[in-house]
Each structure stands twice: as structure tokens, then as C-alpha cells.
């Protein structure tokens, strides 16, 4: 009997016990699964160039895509505003999925409601669901704002949010002047980054539309969809304060997804105040940290006469330099010595460790701007990005990546794969191996199948805890990313060492 009260074995070891091995073997015998030799043959073939060719010839099937759908981005974006409840109009299961998904990454509650449309609403439209739903949400959860987005069901049947919300207002679901911004977020267009853009635009449009701009020196900052937002937004605000730049973060989730445990559940915490979102129309400029999360929003802000600019995830030396230079340019404030010292410290650390990173090859995947920022930093360390993949990246992103590769001798082997998925990445890793893989938790299957060590540096991270609480942006963030890469390399070096067998390089100092 494998189990005992003194030493309780759970799934991590129980099924390795002889009783379970025998049981599983008996089960195997009657499962009618392919023979082991056939499995081995196919497994090997899936790692061949022939397979890669067939894999890349796919036109319709998508396997293990590294992207989610629009409303997830909309819910994330809305969460960054003061006491704002996301209301997703359509089928209810979707909302359960967004909440679970964000909670699993942040290890935090995520509140959002659904209009719970069912078959009859598919036939007659979901207006009544929205009218009743807004009234219930307003009464139960005391929000200051309800941000409405849509599931694909509501989009396919063509529900009109603007008129439905107006009707709900007329019927008294919410007070006449209550803020109910909205965004249509069809899941069959774009990805979660598109949904983020649509919701931010929906919210500022709600506050800005028809208003005259009285320009001031403030800068609006759009962080973009970012699993590291808790750490990153706080670091960003710190840098802005050090620089003395007057700013408004448009959607700041850093407190919402990092509430304390002190006995009180805060359904809402922090976020951009509605007053600030309103006043943001007067800003001198709007600066996005992630271009591909804010294409429409920036266009909209431009229409008000604001200067606009976009970065590609300000990570590493050049990424942060660009951020500070751009902020200085837009605000007229000098970059203070304190930040220059931080820059020097990051450079110092990179110099100390360069021999361990120079020439390392990488595969990087994730949202378009993350991959860009990450590849850029990798090149700064002397590393070579080889496979850069973004399922939700398009042609524009691919060109930006190609320009980036061309900017450095370390980019000469770089190739950008727009619209490809992680099953494509598997073929790339199997046929053209690299030293390190940078991605999210889903990368663990690639790590297992292809033996390439995975560094988890982007959303979602389900199987490691709390990484998102520390920034990867700015010079400080660069240090953290640097350490993550180095630790992975050193740990792998040591992990292979067995005393007396192959521990010659088991060095104490490196």
C-alpha cells in the first residue's frame, strides 16, 4: 500500500509507486492506443524538417495559439479605472473564462458580470438582458462606472450597444448621468490586444466626445495589455515622478490586481479616476507603451490635437532610453541624474555578466510589442534572437521586427513569424534549436518537448507565482530580466552535474 498517514503522497509521487504503475500498465493494455514503437516513430517525425514543412503549410487549423480573444483585453482595460465594473454583453460562460484566466495569473480576484444571454436572446436580441443587467450590477456592486463590452454571440446577432444602453438609461437601470462607456469587442476580429484598444478608446470617447480641448502639459500614458502591469505600472509611475512629469495613466490596474490581505475584500481598488480620465482630453500628448495595443486609441487622441507616440514595451537599455527621451521631449522636463545612475547600474550588471549571455540564441513569443522589446534587450546583452513569433502580430509588426534585426549584428539570424502559433514554434525549436525560450506558462510544453529552457516573462504565468509583482520595464526592470536569464543559464549548468560523473564544471564562482 503506497499511502500512509505519516508520509502522504499526492499526485506528484503517488502514481510512481509500483501499485499504480502496475495498474496503469493493465489499463494501457486495454486502451487500444498505438504501439509504443509507432508512437516513437511519429514523435520523431514531428520533429523533422519534413514535418515542419507540412506544419507550416497549414492554412486553417490553429494549434496552441499564443493569443486570447478581444473581451479579455476589454475586461483588463476596464479594470484599470476607478470602481469600474466590466459588463460583458452576451453568453455568460465567456465572463467566467475571463475572470478565471486573469485570477489564475494574478492570484487575485477578478470581478466582471455578464448579461447572461441564452437561446431566446439569440432570437430576440439581448436588450432586456442588458436593461435588467445594468440595473442589477448598479444595485449590487455600487460601481462608479460600468464598462460594457461584447462576446461574439452578441456581435453575431448584431446587438447595438449604444441604443441598448440609451434604453437602459431611459428605463432607469442606472441614473441618467451614470457613466456607461462601451466597446464592441468581437472575438473573431484581432485578439485581446485589439479588445484592450477598443475598450480604452470606448472609455475616453465616452468622456471626451464633443469636448473642446484646453491643452495643458500633462501626458497621458497607455500601458497596454500587460501581465506585469502590477510591477510595471508602479515602476513607470516612479520614473515619471522622479522626472517630475505630470501624467495620467489611462488604465492603471496595478492596485486592482494587487490588493492586500487584511480581512477586507476590496472589489475595487485604485485605478485611473474618472475625473482624470475626463481631464485627459486636455493633455499635451498621449504616449503608448505598446503600439499594437493602442492603434485606434492613439488615432482618436490625435483627432483632439494631442501629440501621440508609441513604444514597443520599454524593456532593457534602449527601450527605457527611448521612453525617457520621449517623455523628456513631450514634457520638456530633463532626464534627472537619478535615472541616469540607474541606467549605469543596469549597464554595470550587463557588463559583469556579458560572458554568460554573449552569443546565446533565443526563441521569443508573445504579444507583438513584448516580443519586440524583449528581442531588443536580448541583442543588447549580445544574445541573438532567432525565432520571434507573435500569433497576434501582423505584417506591420513583422516589418518592425525586420528593421530591429537589421539594426544590430546580433539580429542577423532573426526571423519574425507573424500569425503563427506555438505548434509552429515547436517545429522551429525542433529543427533549429536555440539556447533559451522566452514566453509564458504555455511554453512549458515546448520546454518539455524540445528541451529548451523556458524563461517565463509574459502573460499568462499560471505555474509560477508572483513574478508579475516585480517590474520588467525601466532600468530596474532590466535588472530583473537580466537576473532571470542568468539564473536559468546557471541553474541549467548546475542541474546536469552528478558527483563523480560529469561535475567537472561544477564551479563555485562564475
Amino acid at each position, binding site marked *: *500500500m503506497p*499511502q500512509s*498517514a505519516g508520509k502522504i*503522497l499526492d*499526485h506528484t509521487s*503517488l*502514481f510512481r509507486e509500483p501499485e*499504480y504503475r502496475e*495498474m496503469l500498465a493493465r489499463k494501457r493494455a*486495454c*486502451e487500444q*492506443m*498505438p504501439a509504443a514503437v*509507432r*508512437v516513437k516513430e*511519429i514523435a520523431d517525425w*514531428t520533429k523533422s524538417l519534413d514535418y515542419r514543412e*507540412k506544419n507550416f503549410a497549414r492554412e*486553417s487549423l*490553429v*494549434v*496552441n*495559439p499564443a493569443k486570447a480573444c478581444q473581451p479579455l483585453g476589454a475586461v483588463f482595460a476596464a479594470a484599470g479605472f476607478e470602481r469600474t465594473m466590466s459588463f460583458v454583453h452576451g*453568453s*455568460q*460562460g*465567456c465572463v*467566467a*473564462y475571463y*475572470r*478565471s484566466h486573469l485570477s*489564475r495569473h494574478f492570484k*487575485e*480576484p477578478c470581478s*466582471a*458580470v*455578464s448579461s*447572461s444571454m*441564452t437561446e431566446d436572446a*439569440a432570437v430576440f436580441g439581448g436588450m432586456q438582458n442588458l436593461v*435588467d*443587467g445594468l*440595473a*442589477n*450590477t448598479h*444595485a*449590487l456592486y455600487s460601481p462608479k462606472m460600468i464598462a460594457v463590452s461584447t462576446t*461574439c*454571440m452578441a456581435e453575431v446577432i448584431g446587438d447595438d450597444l449604444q441604443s441598448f444602453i440609451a434604453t437602459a438609461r431611459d428605463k432607469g437601470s442606472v441614473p441618467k448621468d451614470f457613466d456607461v462607456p462601451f466597446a464592441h469587442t*468581437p*472575438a*473573431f*476580429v484581432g485578439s485581446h490586444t485589439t479588445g484592450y484598444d477598443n475598450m480604452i478608446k470606448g472609455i475616453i470617447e465616452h468622456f471626451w466626445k464633443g469636448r473642446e480641448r484646453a491643452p495643458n502639459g500633462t501626458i497621458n500614458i497607455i500601458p497596454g495589455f500587460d501581465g506585469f502591469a502590477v510591477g510595471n505600472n508602479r515602476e513607470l509611475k516612479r520614473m515619471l515622478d522622479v522626472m517630475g512629469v505630470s501624467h495620467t495613466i489611462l488604465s492603471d490596474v496595478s492596485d486592482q490586481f494587487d*490588493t492586500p490581505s*487584511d*480581512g*477586507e*475584500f476590496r472589489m475595487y481598488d485604485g485605478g485611473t479616476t474618472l475625473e482624470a480620465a475626463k481631464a485627459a482630453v486636455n493633455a499635451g500628448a498621449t504616449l503608448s507603451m505598446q503600439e499594437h495595443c493602442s492603434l485606434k486609441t492613439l488615432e482618436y487622441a490625435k483627432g483632439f490635437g494631442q501629440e501621440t507616440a508609441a513604444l514597443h514595451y520599454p524593456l532593457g537599455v534602449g527601450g527605457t532610453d527611448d521612453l525617457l527621451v520621449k517623455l523628456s521631449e513631450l514634457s520638456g522636463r530633463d532626464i534627472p541624474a537619478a535615472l541616469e545612475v540607474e541606467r549605469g547600474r543596469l549597464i554595470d550588471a550587463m557588463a559583469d555578466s556579458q560572458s554568460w549571455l554573449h552569443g546565446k540564441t533565443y526563441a521569443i513569443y508573445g504579444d507583438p510589442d513584448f516580443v519586440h522589446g524583449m528581442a531588443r534587450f536580448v541583442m543588447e546583452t549580445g544574445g541573438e534572437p532567432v525565432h520571434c513569433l507573435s500569433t497576434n502580430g501582423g505584417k506591420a509588426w513583422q516589418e518592425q521586427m525586420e528593421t530591429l534585426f537589421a539594426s544590430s549584428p546580433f539580429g542577423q539570424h532573426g526571423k519574425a513569424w507573424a500569425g503563427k502559433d506555438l*505548434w509552429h514554434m515547436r517545429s522551429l525549436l525542433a529543427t533549429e534549436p536555440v539556447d533559451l525560450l522566452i514566453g509564458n506558462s504555455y511554453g512549458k*510544453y515546448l520546454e518539455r518537448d524540445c528541451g529548451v529552457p523556458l524563461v517565463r516573462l509574459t502573460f499568462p504565468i499560471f505555474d509560477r507565482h508572483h513574478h508579475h509583482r516585480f517590474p520588467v520595464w525601466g532600468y530596474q526592470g532590466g535588472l530583473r530580466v537580466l537576473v532571470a536569464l542568468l539564473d536559468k543559464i546557471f541553474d541549467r549548468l548546475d542541474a546536469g552535474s552528478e558527483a563523480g560523473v560529469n561535475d567537472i564544471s561544477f564551479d563555485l564562482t562564475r
Partner: protein
Amino acid sequence: MSLDDRNDAEFHQRLIGEVLAAYPEKARKRRQKHLGTVTPADGCGGTPGCAVKSNIKSVPGVMTVRGCAYAGSKGVVWGPIKDMVHISHGPVGCGHYSWSQRRNYFTGTAGVDAFVTMQFTSDFQEKDIVFGGDKKLERVIDEIGTLFPLANGISIQSECPVGLIGDDIEAVSKKKAKETGKTVVPVRCEGFRGVSQSLGHHIANDAIRDWVLDKGDRASDAGPLDVNIIGDYNIGGDAWASRILLEEIGLRVIGNWSGDATLAEVERAPKARLNLIHCYRSMNYICRHMEEKHGVPWMEYNFFGPSQIAASLRAIAAKFGPEVEASAERVILNYQPLADAVIARYRPRLEGKRVMPYVGGLRPRHVVDAYGDLGMLIAGTGYEFGHNDDYQRTGAHVPEGTLIYDDATGYELEKFIERLRPDLVGSGIKEKYSTQKMGVPFRQMHSWDYSGPYHGYDGFAIFARDMDMAVNNPVWGMFRAPWKKPAA
């Protein structure tokens, strides 16, 4: 737990009143039917009742924790069948959020002969909505054939748009099954169908009936002691910890539905002598079908906690005669010292602690006696998507006065937890962190909080350990800063 225990019905009723007061009138009328307390037995040997309404549409805007039919079909019933490719047919999100999240353990080589931890989708774009997705689906199936030759079959898990744009996935399935000679199953589990995951289970069961069981017969010969485990999804290895016991009492398990299942196990199921159903809610439909069509009787059992395990083993064995019954007694006797030792270790640490489960369609009643084995009491319980027959089955397990909540909303749960201050809440990821922030220990009771198995004697030890860890962790004592005075 002794049924002589009482919960304070009057307090619970008052609490329900307070909670309902927050709702607008229309919603209040609807919600009040879903909240109640367990009423006394009728005095004629009947069991206590919990007569709340259930399996009704959720109220819009209240933060139901329910999912959808797709979640019930792909996420629960079909997804664990390991040697088939399950296509999330429609936009990318549904398959993404449900990718590898249910911990249906399996053996096999992912991407080669098993596909449980992968996400296959037709990734609908706008043009697919406008022009229809059938042609794309055909190409998707062809490409699966090229790249995953060892897949034994395909299921098509419909997402919302598929049913709205008039696609004919049944025709595509028939055509492709004929072309490839493999099983291709269309499942109409669009998320807007029904009121929760529950209809998805039913639709998934019907698809098994219509597209697997009634299609030919590739089954092997059946033996007199052959049984199927039905409705065990092998969360954290549950089905394995159950199977080992059934084998020990002398039975042969020919099908594991659907945790760690192969298509062959599904196909041969009607040859069994008996269907043993754990999750009644999600798979009773197919058991009833196999009873009517194939003459396979079925029975419910419960492998949570030693009391129920022993009772279940005896009841199962009784269907097979004295020899198996004698084996069952030996097995129970053999495991009793383990159960006793686990209880001796953990019961003193958990005695009298009050628990509030809020789970899907089975566990709100099935785990009650396992908690009872550890001396823990149930303060309230309820189902996300249970039906009337689930609530009927619940009354026998919980004491009079117990708070009952059906399709509880975020607001209700928060208030109930705040006022009842249970020692432990057992629910899902969406409920976990808000509960813990209130200083109330929590275990995820869908995924076993990344632990498990919890079924069987081996699983009970883990269950006991985990509940103790949750309740008695020192972190709960640190919430108040030492310079803060306790609230008056």
C-alpha cells in the same frame, strides 16, 4: 457528520432576507427562489428537504459563477478523451481559456497519440462568420489528419457563432468520417444553449450516444465482472485512485469515462455488466441510455471519505455476489488502518470546523461525509448548476437548517461568507482570492487546488492533509497588524 447536528435555520433565513434586500425587485423575486434552508424530515422516514429552485436562467448582471454549454461539453465530458482531437470550433477564446485548465490527468505522449493538454481551434475570423465555417472546418480536419496521424477521432465543439450562422457541422462530420474512416463527432454545445454547463453535459452525452455508441461495434468480448467508471474526470488522478480499489475487489474496469479515456473505452462501454457513476449530474443521461438500449444497469457511488467509500464498495460488491463481497470486505479491512491513522492525525486539528462548499453539480453533497469523517460540519452548501434531483439527494447528507444556495451570485457568496465566517470555503478559482482576502481559508474544489487525487482511500489522505493545511496555516493569524486594535 451526525444528522443530529443542527444549523441555525432562523439565522440563515434572516441572512437570506438581508442579502435579498440589496436586489432590485425583479431580480429579488427571481433570486429568492434559489436560497433556502434545509427543512426537517417529514416525520414519516423521509429525508430532510432543500426545496430551492434550480437549473433556471441566471439573472443578468449579478455575477453568476456559472459557465456555458461549451464548458460542459469540451471542458468536462469530451476534453479528457485523450486519443481524440477536440476542435474548439469558432473564435479563439473558448479554447484558449479552457486549455489545460481542468487537470484531467492522462498517460500518453502529448501531440503524438494524446491531445488533452493542447488547444485546437478553427480560430474564426470575420470572413468565417460572414461566409460560414463549414469549408474551413473541412480543411481543419484534413490538416489534423496530416499532422496528427495517430489521433483516433475528432470531436467538433461548437462555440456560439456556429449555431447562429447556420453551419452544418453534422454534414461535414459525416463526410469526413466517411473519407477518413475515423470517428468524427459534431457537438452542438454553443455557449448560449441552456442556462449553464449542465446542458453542455447533456448535449455531450447525446453526441456520444448518437455518434459513438450507435455507430458500429468495435468492442472486445465482455467478462462477467466488467464495469465502467462513469463521470470521473481523473482530476489530479481521481479515477486512478478509484480504479485501483475496484480492481482490488475483483472487478475489471473496461471504461473510464472520461478521465484518461480512449475512444475504444467509450465504444466498448455498453458491454459492461454495470455502470458505476460518480458524477451523476454530468453523465446520468448516457447511463440511462445504456440501461434502456443496451440493458446495462447503473448505480451511483461515492468515493470521498472512508465512510462513503466503504458503503459504496459494499453496495457495488453486492451486485456481483458473495465472492466479490468477500473481497470488498477484505479491501475495506485492509484500508481501515490507513483511514483510521489519517483521521487520528487530522481530526483533532479539524474537529468542529465549519465548511461552506459551493461547487458544480456533485461535490456539494458528495464531499459532505468526507468532511464529516474529519469531524467537520457543513454550514451551507449549494450547486452552480445542480438540478432538482441533486437537491433531493442533498437533504440526506446535511443537517436541518443548513443554508442552501443555488447559482449563488458573487454578492450573495461574499455576504454569506462574511456573516457565517466559516472556517473553510470550498469553491472555484473565481471565488478563491476574494474569500482569502476576508481571512477565510479556502480550497478550490473543482481542481483540488492543484493537488489530488481526492477519490479513494489514497485520495482521502491527501484530502485530509490539504484541508488541514488550508485551515491551520499560520498566515490567517497575521492579517491584523499588531498596532491595529481589534474592531469593537
